[in-house]
């Protein structure tokens, strides 16, 4: 909540102090009387805090003004671009989990095999590779040299109400593949290392030894007991990563000319299009806050200890 207010405040300051909005909106030959009228119309003559509250009200209603570059309402622009980015981010997250968790488990169970070592080395390289370079290399290999996959755009999209999706057509799915892998590459290495570290930790605990002593199959021990407890920190990290993924989508979208919010934002930065920047900032802040909330709630679902502690705390208060 506080984060949201701070973000709103920064966005608001962006609006007001960077350049003079009045001189941006009026032709240069406008008279002082015109300027004052405009100022009054925009409410810029009112005290600072009143303006801030008005800005917050407008923002809550999704009204962020008009893009200086495109001359269209910012909210419409964002609504158009949002589905593309969310689809990309979601696919990348699923990719990260689908690859990262199994590989992490494998490297933890077979620590000393050469496959595990190779995977760990690859992940170190993955951390040092900038996101955009992965994209360029993938384009070079799969689009330019092999000619298998498209290298830009979303392919054919289908309109479902206000949501335009690329998930239902073949060309849309093909277009999604490379950007999603690019975007998911860093989270994969992260999830993998985390799962491996946690898994190694958990496998050393007493209850795992006890489970083995009971004669449970190693499958039941590894996946039924160990993996479950490994996943708690993974949820936090992935939760925080979803936010980072959406932010890093800026880069991936530029490489692949993916028509999402990130591309909109980077063009806004290049053209100093303040309303778009402010709106994007608010939206990202909002998404971050929501994700943190969801992660906290998921904790209770996954970790029974927290629920017990909560009840104990409530009991102690009484």
């Amino acid at each position, binding site marked *: 909540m*506080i*984060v949201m207010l*701070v*973000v709103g405040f920064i966005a608001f300051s*962006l609006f007001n*102090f*960077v*350049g003079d909005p009045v001189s941006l909106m009026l032709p240069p030959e406008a008279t002082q009387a015109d300027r004052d009228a405009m100022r009054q119309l925009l409410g810029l003559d009112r005290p600072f805090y009143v303006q801030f509250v008005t800005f917050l009200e407008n923002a809550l209603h999704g009204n962020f003004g008009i893009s200086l570059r495109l001359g269209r309402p910012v909210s419409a622009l964002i609504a158009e671009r949002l589905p593309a980015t969310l689809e990309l981010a979601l696919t990348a997250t699923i990719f990260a989990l689908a690859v990262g968790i199994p590989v992490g488990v494998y490297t933890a169970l077979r620590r000393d095999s050469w496959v595990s070592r190779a995977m760990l080395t690859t992940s*170190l*390289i993955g*951390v*040092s*590779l*900038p*996101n*955009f*370079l992965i994209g*360029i*290399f993938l*384009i*070079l290999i799969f689009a*330019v040299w092999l000619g298998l996959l498209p*290298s830009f755009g979303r392919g054919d999209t289908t309109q479902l109400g206000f949501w335009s999706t690329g998930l239902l057509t073949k060309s849309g799915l093909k277009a999604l593949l490379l950007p999603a892998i690019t975007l998911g590459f860093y989270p994969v290495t992260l999830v993998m290392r985390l799962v491996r570290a946690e898994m190694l930790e958990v496998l050393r605990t007493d209850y795992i030894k006890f489970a083995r002593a009971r004669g449970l199959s190693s499958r039941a021990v590894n996946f039924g007991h160990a993996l479950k407890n490994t996943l708690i920190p993974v949820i936090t990290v992935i939760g925080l990563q979803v*936010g*980072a993924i959406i*932010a*890093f989508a*800026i*880069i991936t979208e*530029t*490489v692949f000319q993916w028509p999402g919010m990130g591309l909109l*934002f*980077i063009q*806004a*930065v*290049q053209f*100093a299009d*303040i309303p778009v*920047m402010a709106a994007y*900032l608010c939206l*990202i*802040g909002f998404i*971050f806050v929501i994700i*943190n909330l969801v992660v906290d709630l998921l904790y209770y679902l996954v970790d029974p200890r927290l629920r017990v502690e909560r009840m104990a705390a409530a009991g102690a208060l009484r």
Partner: protein
Amino acid sequence: MMIGSPTTRGRPSMTLGRLARVTDSDLFYSFRRSPLVVLAAVVTAAIILSALLAPWIAPHNPFDLATLNLLDAFTPPAFEDKGTATYLLGTDDQGRDVLSAIIFGSRMSLLVGLIATLLAMVAGVSLGLISGYAGGKIDAFIMRVADVQLSFPSILIALLIDGLARASLPKELHDQLAVYVLIVAIAASGWVRYARTVRGSTLVERQKEYVQAARVIGRHPLAIMFTHVLPNALGPVLVLVTLHIGEAIITEATLSFLGVGVPPTQPSLGTLIRIGNDFLFSGEWWITVFPGAALVILVLAINVLGDWLRDALNPKLR
């Protein structure tokens, strides 16, 4: 009871002077033991050296328009059929030698990365010291700001600062200051880690007797902070710096790739990749791939060094 302990041993290295003290140290021992780290150090040193000596080492001067020949444009690297030995790694669209451009580009990348890291370190360490030593409201304020910033990916912060500067400065002025804006943007996106680490150690240090003593004899709080507390809080900072340099170089490359970084007249590795990206589809892959490879090798080498330093300085892992 005997005076003098039986564990006292002579230290032969004392007589052999400074060099021996370095070569006998634990740090140097662990350095020599790992061939990968030695390789990384050699690579880093080579890149730094060639960047420093760029004007004398580079086979061509990519900025001297008089020596450019458009007829040489798009020459493939020397090992391909149409390549010539004059341009070892080929040329770009304006006939610039790719190898020379890389040497000059890595100079820019290193410069921005190093200065931004140092700036972030100085700012972060100072704020962390003040925060930890002063406590109370100042501490709460600085740490709150750090928390908010930490919930956003650093690349987003850097982009935002760059966009702000672009919007508030006149265009000509911004073009002149672009490099400095970039450095400040990267530094501002990275100070938090230093502040948090130093604050943590400061909180521990300020309870110790030597600080109490300094306070009792009436030294100025700032003097205590910087001459007494700082040296004892600086250990972990060294590791952070090494790991941060690689990240700062990646951030710089990413911003330049997105077109909001250094001006095209003084290209960094990121700018070179951006330029080459336009020619990926017409088959001139070398314009992108070689600067990309240079960037990866540089960052990988620095990260290997940073990883090693972290492990070597951490007594828990020995």
